[in-house]
């Protein structure tokens, strides 16, 4: 059992979950994920990690409330316990000194790029953080990201804050102007991941995307998370979850993510 330290709706529908897990906190690396099961009848839910504190033994994740499992997570309060919190899972993104690195995040991914910003900054890179949301009130952690980035570029779809539009087009503009970028990493919804990948493709800038597939065990046993990358079937839980965005079969990913749409509705209505 792992104890919830904090659970807070940080912006509408996006929750911060801080959980006590000393061993996992001492082991996590940027780009990895954990699996949480809210209760004994719950699903095994994969979450990317936004921060961890080895001294205090806590791990912080963000999640978007969408269905039954995340609704259960959204009801947790400090002091509650969850039966499963397991990790670290997936291959880490080892930071290297490359030059200039762009980290793009949307939705829960704004949190997920935070540990990457820190790691890539400490590895000596010039870090550009790009975050996006529908509107200004859906943004969070700008202060934390500013701390570890050389620039913070904010986009909102309605133009209420920062630039109007999406990170993908703003990144394309930047590249168009001839600015040199050595690596792009994107965390967020599938739409954003594919949009940024398409934006960088013509410029040949290496783009890593953190995929969020359906998973069951998350430890390389079931194959629910299979994705097609460069024409090969791979398993997001052990081969990823971070892949070359220019090689991902997005259509397949989107279709597979919709597999349980009907059941999800049924479960949520229960």
């Amino acid at each position, binding site marked *: 059992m792992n104890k919830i330290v904090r659970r807070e709706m940080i912006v509408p529908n996006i929750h911060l979950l801080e959980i006590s897990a000393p*061993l*996992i906190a001492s*082991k996590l690396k940027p780009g990895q994920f954990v699996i949480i*099961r809210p209760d004994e*009848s*719950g*699903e*095994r839910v994969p979450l990317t990690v936004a921060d961890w504190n080895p001294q205090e033994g806590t791990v912080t994740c963000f999640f978007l409330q969408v269905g*039954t*499992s995340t609704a*259960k997570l959204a009801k947790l309060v400090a002091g509650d316990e969850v*039966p*499963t*919190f*397991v*990790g*670290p*899972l997936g291959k880490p993104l080892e930071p290297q000194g490359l030059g200039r690195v762009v980290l793009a995040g949307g939705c829960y991914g704004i949190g997920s790029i935070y540990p990457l910003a820190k790691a890539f900054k400490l590895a000596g890179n010039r870090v550009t953080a790009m975050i996006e949301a529908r509107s200004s009130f859906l943004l969070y952690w700008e202060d934390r990201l500013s701390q570890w980035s050389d620039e913070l570029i904010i986009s909102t779809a309605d133009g209420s804050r920062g630039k109007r539009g999406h990170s993908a087009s703003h990144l394309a503009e930047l590249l168009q102007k001839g600015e040199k970028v050595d690596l792009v990493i994107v965390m967020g919804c599938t739409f954003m991941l594919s949009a940024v990948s398409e934006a960088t493709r013509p410029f040949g800038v290496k783009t890593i995307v953190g995929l969020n597939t359906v998973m*069951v*065990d998350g*430890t*390389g*046993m*079931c*194959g*629910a998370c*299979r994705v*097609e990358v460069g024409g090969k*079937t791979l*398993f997001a839980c*052990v081969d990823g979850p971070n892949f070359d965005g220019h090689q991902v079969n997005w259509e*397949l990913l989107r*279709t*597979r993510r*919709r*597999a*349980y749409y009907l*059941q*999800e509705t*049924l*479960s949520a209505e*229960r």
Partner: protein
Amino acid sequence: MAKISPTKTKMREQPPQERIKNFQEVPYGYSEEEAILEAQRCLQCPKPTCITGCPVEIDIPGFIGFIAKGDFPGAIRRLKEKNVLPAICGRVCPQEEQCEKLCILGKKLQPVGIGRLERFAADWEAAHGVPELPQRKRRTGKRIAVVGAGPAGLTVAGDLIQMGHEVTLFEALHEAGGVLVYGIPEFRLPKLIVGREVENLCKMGVKLVKNFVVGTTKTVDELLEEFNAVFLGTGAGLPWFMQLPGENLNGVYSANEYLTRVNLMKAYLFPQYDTPIQKGKRVATIGGGNVAMDSARTALRLGADYSMIIYRRSRVEMPARNEEIHHAEEEGVEFHFLTNPVGYYSDANGWVKEAECIKMRLGEPDSSGRRRPIPIERSNFRIPVDTVVVAIGNSPNPLVPSTTPGLETGRHGNIVTDELTGKTSKKGVFAGGDVATGAATVISAMGAGRKAARAIDEYVRTGKW
């Protein structure tokens, strides 16, 4: 002496038409009278051959002799000298390939129902109060980490705790049992029974740590700092697919996923449990092993109108236990022999709607000794399906090998071990079960665990590698 009945005493079962509507166990097991009757068929051979067929060397005539006399506590005590999980083995061992195959009676008549009697003794004990726990030898103070709480790990843990060692059993999932809880369905092995056996191990002193992924939460090297030896029984890993067009469509599952959703995550109780599963009406399961039978029978219980097995060879080459094939046939599973899928087609939403297959014929025997299936040209045809379960096996779990320097692996990613001791290429590290051999049976994993436990005991006592 009365004449020996030519056939095994029948085990009463749920009728097929009833049982395909529920997930309850199919056979009811023997009553005391039936068990005694069956036990009396045993000839009590002075030199029993059956024992040589048992990977864990159970004193078979010994425990059966006790049942024949009506001494059920005596029977279970004798069983447990060699087997910590009799309720499980009695249900899932391929006895017809092992002990029962070597039974002298079997030369002329049906062999003694050894598996059924083993199951009876274990169930009798569970139904009659507190199970007796085997004695632990004097404490050695040696600490052993067992990684993976499946059949191999449970056996190693049970043996080593009796030998007086301290045992910590690590499990990555949220339930102990490995394939016994995620793979084998409830109707074949009730999870209550697995839970009971695990609980007994814990009562004997095994420390169980669930939700712990050895390889990442802690590495094997880190475990070696805390423990005198490590046993790796991490089991099955990535499921195999056939690399066919359309194999990643929605509705195409690996058997691991299909069964894990249903068994471990209890998707058959959805939406009472949150994990969903596609309840297909026309389900094709690819493969001919026990896992394929489990999948096809699970599909029926989830409400399929047609549950098909597609197998590239013929019935005689199918690796599944006879009893499983028989049960599947009784329940109405359709068998398409000498048939192999070549691709899948989808509807507009990306769901599988047709499987394209090709007819096969059998050629000369291949390296496995079975006749090689050869495609018959231009024999392609399509079968309408809404769910496909690919049950053609899996490679060993990659998490430990990929995070353990100095651990030698084979061609399929399996951990290379010495067959007699389970020793790996890394000092202090042993392995057994599917992670060493590739997908095999519960009992062979237990047999490997038994051997490894002996070798671990010797190693931690002597320090000699």
